[in-house]
């Protein structure tokens, strides 16, 4: 990925946050696991480009952005800015690097110190980076940048406090502070999603203007596909710490290939009244990043998941719970009574025992067969290789799962087994008899 035009090159970046286990567990040095917020991400951004990072809440977008500025320490991988190894920098050098990379956060209200005037806040970077301490010089520079972001005439804003400004005006002040040192890269984390619909367009227009005037490069983080489509040259779709699809914006929006990208696009409510509510939304929510699903992390929600996608015991438990949630109390009680403690299904693993309450595995196997007959379209049956009655319960063997990697498909890169000629050619596993 040594791209001559690349301003930023990220390779196999990983940010894991250790889980805080109990005191006892830490004392004996027990591994309590980690939140895999960013888990092996690679991309590059060319000078002058806008790269969008799009994904649902908890997909790791903010963590990725913070890692680019070393506001959080990655646990692996590399980041190169203008060819320089960002992760190898020492404390003093990090400070110099932050002159070149600035970040704008989602909540403009929390980004400005309520006790600082706009002049002090926007001029702050000049002081901490030792650019100038001359009051008149600072005032001149702050006035110029306020004018540039539309807080004009600047005299009216210099002495104001954040609480005197509206949300949009605060975000303008935050942008002024971010560009006052003429950075080369701006990481904008949901810069407009807390703002009123009618203010979003104004701030995006300002950001486009700043980019042209100041030769900026943007990493634009958002969960809003519509602004990403308008604003970005390329987009990366993130799910649970990984990029699942990346490519030119037109390509991704015209030919979304990853089932997750397709779902996101279908879910957007459109003010055009000719569209109606989509019916085949992925179920459930983004799973816990501390214990991500095996194989493809999207498989529990994927409407196209098939045998090699990583089926496991937890999926079986979820399927049962979902069935009982919609099936009513009688069904729940009747079926639940036949089964033993299901807590054992909550461990990741591709082999599991569903315990029987009566002691015979045949009952469990019969029950599972009936459930499959009730809804054979349920994706999980593609991933179950066998159900074997044993004393005490039924043993379920799942199809071995594979981790999809990004591979070129058409004009984009996609991480999905549907596009892997070796796996996709495997005829869909018939549900076991």
């Amino acid at each position: 990925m040594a791209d001559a035009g690349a301003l930023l090159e990220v390779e196999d970046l990983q940010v894991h946050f250790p889980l805080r286990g109990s005191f006892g567990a830490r004392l004996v040095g027990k591994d309590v696991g980690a939140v895999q917020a960013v888990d092996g991400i690679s991309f590059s951004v060319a000078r002058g480009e806008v790269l969008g990072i799009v994904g649902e809440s908890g997909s790791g977008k903010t963590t990725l952005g913070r890692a680019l500025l070393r506001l959080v320490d990655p646990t692996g991988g590399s980041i190169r800015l203008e060819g320089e190894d960002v992760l190898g920098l020492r404390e003093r050098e990090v400070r110099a690097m932050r002159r070149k990379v600035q970040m704008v956060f989602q909540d403009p209200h929390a980004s400005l110190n309520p006790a600082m005037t706009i002049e002090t806040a926007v001029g702050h970077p000049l002081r901490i980076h030792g650019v100038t301490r001359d009051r008149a010089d600072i005032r001149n520079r702050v006035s110029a940048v306020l004018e540039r972001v539309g807080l004009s005439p600047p005299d009216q804003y210099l002495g104001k406090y954040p609480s005197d400004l509206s949300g949009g005006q605060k975000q303008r002040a935050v942008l002024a502070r971010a560009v006052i040192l003429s950075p080369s890269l701006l990481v904008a984390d949901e810069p407009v999603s807390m703002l009123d619909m009618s203010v979003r367009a104004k701030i995006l227009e300002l950001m486009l203007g700043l980019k042209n005037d100041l030769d900026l490069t943007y990493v634009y983080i958002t969960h809003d596909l519509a602004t990403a489509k308008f604003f970005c040259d390329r987009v990366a779709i993130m799910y649970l710490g990984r990029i699942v699809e990346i490519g030119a914006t037109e390509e991704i929006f015209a030919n979304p290939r990853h089932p997750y990208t397709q779902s996101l696009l279908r879910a957007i409510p459109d003010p055009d009244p000719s569209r109606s509510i989509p019916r085949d939304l992925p179920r459930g929510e983004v799973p816990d990043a501390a214990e991500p699903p095996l194989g493809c992390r999207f498989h529990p929600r994927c409407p196209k998941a098939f045998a090699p996608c990583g089926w496991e015991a937890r999926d079986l438990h979820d399927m049962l719970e979902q069935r009982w949630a919609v099936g009513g109390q009688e069904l729940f009680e009747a079926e639940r009574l036949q089964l033993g403690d299901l807590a054992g299904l909550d461990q990741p693993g591709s082999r599991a025992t569903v315990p029987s309450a009566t002691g015979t595995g045949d009952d469990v196997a019969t029950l599972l067969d009936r459930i499959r007959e009730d809804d054979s379209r349920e994706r999980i049956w593609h991933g179950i290789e066998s159900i074997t009655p044993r004393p005490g319960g039924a043993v379920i063997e799942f199809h071995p799962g594979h981790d999809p990697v990004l591979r070129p498909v058409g004009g984009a890169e996609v991480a999905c087994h549907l596009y892997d000629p070796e796996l996709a050619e495997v005829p869909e596993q018939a549900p076991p008899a």
Partner: protein
Amino acid sequence: MSANGPVLDVRDLRVWYGSTRGAVRAVDGVSIQIRAGEVLGLVGESGCGKSTLGRGVMGLLPDGSAVDGQVLFQDTDLLKVSDRQLRRMRGPDIALIFQEPMTRLNPLMRIEDHFSETITAHEPKLSKAEVRRRSLEALGGMGIPPTRFRNYPHEFSGGMRQRIMIALALVLRPKLVIADEPTTALDVLVEAQILSILADLKRNFDTALLLITHNLGIVAEACDRVAVMYAGRIAEEGDARTVFSQPAHPYTRELLRSVISLNTTGLHYIPGAPPSLIDPPAACKFHPRCPDAMRVCAQLAPVEQRLSAGQRVECWLHGPGDRIPEGGREPLEQERIAVAEEA
């Protein structure tokens, strides 16, 4: 109440908040109706009075506010009933869904207890088994499995908590639900799930729903009718498809144009911001921002008109012509609005 009369009939509602600088006229003469099984969307920029209207209907206004007009719920004026009676009606008759679910669920109470408390408060004679059956049914409808019934609120994700809140608001099958930005904090996928749940609700139980949102996409998908609110008044109201395809009020049109959707090719916005509701502009309150403003707009308040397409609208562009003084149709000289005058 006639068989197909409205469940909610709000007539000339006014709500004031006291402030050191004077009275904030947050709702300034609003009339709306919602029938059984109908979803009315309420849209507008922030500060236009949407939440105040929702709370005013529920009788949940803070101290220091004053209210006038009529809020007829099945012919009972909610502004006239006692606080006690109103509390009794919240749940079985009317329910409010707030934006932030965590603030409304008690962190020390299991989900099960939230439900049994709500149900037994209104139907103390129900058996435990029946309370449980109803709770599980409400949760199941929101996709929350019965096995999670004994968990505490913090053990659920944001999207699940919001669905639990909705299940709780609906467990008594209220006839009227007011949802104030129920999906603003959520992702598109969870949002879409919740919208389809609300759609099922009106289909299956004939619930009347007031859906407050600033997401016009949601209105187009989920609402039968839409009311556009500006500076405390309803600027335009009518069939959602009609209003969105042929907006009659310039504010509706400009609001729709400023939405960034997948079809956006250029940015558009309304200059300026909604006015202070302490001393709003005279006559048509939108006139300083309106691209179509005429002289009459700064002189006389527009009169409500019903158009042939069905919507009602308050804007001089739609007459009545005989009330417009001579020269009143000349373009209005407007002051320039600075770029950063915004919400």
